[in-house]
């Protein structure tokens, strides 16, 4: 587990107004292992806690065990060992399922039934009125094609129906496995808006995705899983911090004098000259102080900006081929 300092709790672009119960977790996995017949260990001693009301991004490379974990949360797959608790209930029980909506892997529906009939069928199982089907269809913008057979839907329409099915029960917890898969740009934006409105309603979302930019925009917490183990957990900023503080890009004249001046600063770890500018490995919070030092030393500062690590860089660092999967997978992220 990467030691991730608890810096901020929210993605930069979203407000933190949602009520988060401090000791209440919508999802708790304790030492969960899933070994499939044939010997593949898809999930390996996983500990994961998703706070109530959070939009939690679940990241990991292909085959990391995200889908398997999600299947265990709704009782489709049983863990080989360990304890799973969802909304305080064991998965797969009527009381738990009634409060959980899930879209896991690809949307699965009856091909000969129309979109609305597929949802009505699900509504019958769920014990919710048929009207919920129409409402869910409207929510994902499928009303116009509600009466066409599912097999005639395009990829993105199928995906939208999958999201509608997950919304059918107005659940407290949504489990969405790559929900933007196949969506057009408008659909992706609508999904982002939907996730925000779900958060405003105080619902919890567990979202897996390979589109890191999306995750960064909507998730307030992120867990990274690799080879079945949690390798990092925290806010997007926490994860970026895995790579260190980041760096500063400084345009200065004369360059030699600036390099000498900066190398003398105790908090600066390295100074390189790249394309006539200085790349300074140091916390971006030092920007003002370094600027003053340079000016006092008689150096003209023409440009100065922080270079933040992207979530993608952090992800690749955390899940790269030579990344050891660390044994201690306790949650070290933000304290809520």
């Amino acid at each position, binding site marked *: 587990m990467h030691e991730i300092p608890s810096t901020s709790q929210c993605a930069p672009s979203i407000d933190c107004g949602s009520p988060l119960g401090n000791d209440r977790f919508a999802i708790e996995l304790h030492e969960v292992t899933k070994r499939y017949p044939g010997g593949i260990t898809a999930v390996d001693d996983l500990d994961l806690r998703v706070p109530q009301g959070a939009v939690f991004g679940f990241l990991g490379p292909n085959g990391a065990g995200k889908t398997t974990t999600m299947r265990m949360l709704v009782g489709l*797959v049983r863990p080989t060992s360990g304890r799973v608790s969802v909304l305080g209930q064991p998965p797969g029980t009527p009381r738990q399922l009634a409060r959980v909506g899930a879209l896991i892997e690809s949307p699965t529906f009856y091909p000969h039934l129309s979109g609305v009939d597929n949802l009505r069928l*699900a509504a019958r199982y769920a014990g919710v009125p048929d009207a919920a089907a129409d409402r869910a269809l409207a929510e994902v913008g499928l009303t116009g094609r509600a009466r066409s057979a599912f097999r005639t839907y395009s990829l993105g329409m199928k995906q939208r129906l999958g999201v509608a099915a997950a919304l059918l029960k107005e659940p407290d917890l949504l489990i969405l496995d790559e929900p933007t898969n196949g969506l057009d740009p408008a659909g992706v934006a609508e999904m982002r808006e939907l996730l925000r409105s779900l958060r405003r309603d105080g619902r919890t979302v567990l979202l897996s995705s390979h589109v890191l930019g999306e995750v960064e925009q909507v998730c307030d917490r992120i867990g990274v899983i690799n080879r079945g183990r949690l390798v990092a957990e925290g806010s997007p900023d926490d994860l970026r911090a895995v790579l260190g503080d980041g760096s500063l890009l400084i345009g200065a004249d004369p360059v030699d004098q600036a390099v000498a001046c900066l190398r003398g600063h105790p908090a600066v770890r390295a100074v390189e000259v790249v394309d006539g500018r200085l790349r300074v490995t140091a916390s971006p919070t030092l920007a003002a102080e370094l600027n003053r030092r340079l000016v006092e030393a008689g150096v003209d500062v023409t440009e100065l900006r922080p270079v933040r690590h992207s979530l993608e860089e952090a992800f690749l660092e955390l899940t790269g081929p030579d990344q050891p999967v660390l044994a201690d997978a306790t949650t070290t992220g933000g304290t809520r």
Partner: protein
Amino acid sequence: MIASVRAAWFADRKRPAVWTVTLTWTALALVFGIGVPYLVHLTLAGDPEQADAAASLLDGVLPGQLVTTGIGLFPLFGGAIVVILGALVVGNEYRWGTLNLIFTQRPRRWQVTAGHAVALCVLTLLLAVLTFAALAAVTTVIALVEGRAPSLPSPGRLAAAVAAAWLICTAHAALGFLLAIAFRSTATAIAVGLVWTLVLENAVSGLALVLSPLTAVRNLLLAPSSGALAGALGARSQFDGGTPGVLESGNAALPVAVLLGYVLVTFGLGIWLTARRDVG
């Protein structure tokens, strides 16, 4: 549980394959149970030497013999078709991956599968009733055309025949249901189910005629038990000029018990398997 039955029935009744199978079966029953014998009767009718055979064939397609003619169709032909029906209604859930959808709504998994089983029982009842209704209609028309009295068997006998047909169909459907779950596939279940009932069981049943120790085994098999139940209701066996699959039998109790056993055990195993196994 009621929600699961309602939902399964909703899915089944909107499935074109279900109605294709049901209507195909009804058409086959009419063609082979009534159409062919009646055509043969018409061909023989002009020949004085064949008068007895012609008269017997005509009797068989009149309403009076509705029970024996109808029930005789079920053991071999009906059973095979209904194995397909049972495999279809649950096997396609695996093909389409829809177990993901229906197992995550609310009811427990065993309830969902049990709902499917109950809906399948409703379908087989419909199929049995529909078959006898169609046969009754067509035989009545023939009686009127031939100038005979269109008198149906007593309601009690008709009800017994429908119940027996229902039991035979449900037992076969339950086999298809279990096989589809076991193999997670419609096609494999249909192939295995048909080879089992049509080939394997009939081979054992035939061998039992010469190897008497096999009789005990035969009495516990699905297709021969169905044949014995039809025989007990008066259907004539193949050796007696009747329908293939029908066996002579004076007693309905044993075949009824065996068929009920099949229904309970195969549905039970199917429900247990789906509740236990991982989905995905």
